[in-house]
């Protein structure tokens, strides 16, 4: 009987996502860097917040966005338009931010770091009303 809990423990361990660190407060741990420290962009982007990204995951991300109080508001993926094609896939993108309230998808003309037209896929971890926390 003792082998069953051990096997169960191993199964559970195998199902835990690779990304288990808490990212709800800024700055996120691990390889995440402030986007403004990587490229010449404002530290706080109106409509998005303060962005962090692991450079190894560019251009798609995830980018983690925080409000002025350092609280996580969204996880953003940036997908180049030219890569949304029959020959390209984006699989297994990490989504470490937890519960998603709603999702926004919109076109972006480009910016330093992702210097081509792309789509922003925004997983909001806050309510629609709380998007105002990063409006300005």
């Amino acid at each position, binding site marked *: 009987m003792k082998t069953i809990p051990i096997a169960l423990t191993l199964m559970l361990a195998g199902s835990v996502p690779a990304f288990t660190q808490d990212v709800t407060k800024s700055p996120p741990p691990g390889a995440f860097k402030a986007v403004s420290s990587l490229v010449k962009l404002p530290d706080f982007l109106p409509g998005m917040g303060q962005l962090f990204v692991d450079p190894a995951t560019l251009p798609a991300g995830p980018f983690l966005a925080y409000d002025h109080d350092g609280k996580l508001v969204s996880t953003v993926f940036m997908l180049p338009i030219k890569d949304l094609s029959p020959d390209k896939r984006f699989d297994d993108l990490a989504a470490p931010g937890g519960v998603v309230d709603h999702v926004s998808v919109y076109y972006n*003309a*480009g910016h330093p770091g992702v210097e081509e037209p792309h789509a*922003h896929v925004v997983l909001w971890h806050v309510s629609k009303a709380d998007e105002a926390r990063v409006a300005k």
Partner: protein
Amino acid sequence: MRGKDDGAHVWFDPIGIRVSPGQMVRWTNRDPGNSHTTTSYHPAIFERPLRMPPGARPWNSDYLLPGQSFSVTFDREGVYDYYCVPHEHAGMVGRIVVGMPTPPAPSAEAGSANPVPEVALSAFPPVEEILAKGIVRRA
């Protein structure tokens, strides 16, 4: 240099302007959520096609954060085309006409390793319109 809050639209305002030889043009980034450049089309800068009078000095502002400015003084008559590095593929380009160039056509050198994308080529305002109006804004 302007842009919408969500970054969906970016543009130079005005997109076309006529100045006299010796005048200075200053670009200021008025887009609160993005960085922009003003970069001339010249083989010496990112191996781009020549789209300015031969012999004129090319320029590249590098990234300008919101509120930052960059200036260029134009001494030689002719047509000068420029672009924003991260937004050329979104059609963010501009044109400056200095004096009354003859013929009133942009300088363009074919065969560049980094040609101008079609979306940018189609965005330049006609030289004739700039000469007629002095200032051309985005439609």
